[in-house]
């Protein structure tokens, strides 16, 4: 049934934001991560575990690649180019840290392949995973170029939260059971709570009213979260957000596979943008002195 849907709606579905997009968007949550400020410490990762009921899988399952960290910090050792096949003896430039969580792509490759439409794009521009719909085909994670979807190969409820650890579980979201794919939601429970509250008070959301757990805890404030809908639709979402200001400042536009910046030296870039995934996480390049 959903296959038929998807075939019918495919072309509309792939319509970029600059052409009006697939959705009548209410918000478009995006993020900016300044890699020059990220120290790779990992506070965000633990904050994510605490907020999102992420299972601790243990050493053996971690070895099998079953870790459930929605947010992971990748570390790369870069070899500076010394030319003529020479290799540096030491890591004089330090390491390169990269916090990676769902890029919330606007043209997400994970979405169209779900046979049961358990993953879809919300009017908030989020890449949603509806756990109770998921049948565990794992097509989505296969199709994610960033490898940011995590599958529950086992049921971790008993092993990960022996009493009274289970008392810490956040009731605003579920504990995902065996056979379900899960992923970063930009802390949708916080988004939902903030939206509900604004709705109850008959007002619009304001910038900074809530933050995902990772952004809130980051000791160097390397992450900025906010609505970036007004980049394309002024006056529609939450206006004048700090996140949108950074996207503008770094001249990065949504809906493009290659940016045409007036100043190509500006630091903003998106990972694997050329794949036409249209990710909503903007990275600011790490600065190197030499």
């Amino acid at each position, binding site marked *: 049934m959903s296959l038929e849907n998807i075939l019918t709606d495919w072309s*509309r579905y792939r319509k970029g934001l600059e052409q009006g997009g697939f959705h009548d968007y209410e918000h478009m949550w995006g993020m900016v991560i300044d890699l020059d400020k990220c120290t790779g410490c990992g506070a965000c990762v633990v904050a994510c575990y605490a907020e999102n009921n992420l299972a601790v899988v243990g050493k053996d399952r971690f070895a099998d690649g079953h870790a459930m960290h929605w947010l992971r910090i990748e570390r790369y050792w870069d070899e500076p180019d010394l030319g003529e096949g020479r290799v540096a003896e030491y890591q004089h430039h330090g390491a390169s840290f990269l916090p990676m969580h769902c890029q919330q792509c606007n043209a997400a490759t994970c979405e169209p392949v779900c046979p049961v439409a358990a993953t879809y794009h*919300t009017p908030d521009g989020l890449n949603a995973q509806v*756990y109770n719909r998921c049948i565990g085909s794992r097509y989505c994670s296969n199709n994610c170029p960033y490898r940011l979807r995590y599958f529950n190969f086992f049921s971790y409820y008993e092993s990960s939260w022996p009493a009274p650890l289970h008392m810490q579980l956040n009731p605003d979201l*579920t504990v995902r059971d065996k*056979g379900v794919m899960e992923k970063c939601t930009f802390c949708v429970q916080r988004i*939902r709570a903030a939206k509900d509250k604004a*709705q109850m008070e008959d007002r619009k959301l304001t910038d900074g009213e809530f933050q995902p757990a990772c952004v809130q805890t980051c000791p160097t404030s390397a992450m900025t979260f906010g609505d970036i809908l007004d980049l394309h639709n002024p006056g529609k979402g939450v206006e004048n957000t700090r996140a949108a200001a950074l996207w503008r400042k770094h001249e990065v536009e949504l809906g493009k596979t290659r940016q045409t910046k007036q100043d190509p030296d500006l630091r903003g870039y998106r990972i694997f943008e050329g794949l036409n995934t249209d990710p909503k996480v903007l990275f600011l390049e790490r600065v190197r002195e030499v």
Partner: protein
Amino acid sequence: MSGIRQLFSGRWSFPGVRIPVGERAGLSSTAGFLALVVALFACAPLAAQAGSTVPNAVPPEGTYSGKDVPQPIEFPHDIHAKINGINCMYCHTYARRSKVAGIPPTSKCMGCHSVIATDKPRIKQLTEYWEKREPPHWLKVHDLPDFVHFTHEKHIKRFVFDNPELPVEQVSEVCAFCHGDIKDMTVAKKQKPLTMGFCRSCHEANNGPFDCWKCHK
């Protein structure tokens, strides 16, 4: 919003769907989904409930025959809500302020019952709890799956406070949409299916939101 709505329109309308009750199905798991699919095809659509006494609202469709739930005190909803005409939100005060309606704290009961009907056996039972400084352990009748986010406050806002034609005194008519005729019961019993189809029928008729993540968590 309209996009998603069209994507699913007319294809997911199964009023009166029942999720197997009390079965330990893996939540949000393959097993859970399959159970749901089986349920979808096994259940014949039940008759829609006709008419509504609430202006500007179409109630959800479906009925359900719930089990009797033994409670620590046989609380008479009928005496409170029907005979004495007490507003539901007098006791379930959190309904307009929180996602849960809440069981009233024992102090609330004692607010009246330290003087009213103190000689009745059920009140004596209550007083005993109060004096032991221990709240009764009630059993939950209207339970939703853990993967569902339902918020009372927004529904109360939509159907009561934002509904100019419904006096707040008649809030019980709105509560009855999902809780049935509690006014006529002593101990509450589930009368509505509280399934996704049930929710959908109402969201469809009243122009409610259709984004999956509005209700699924």
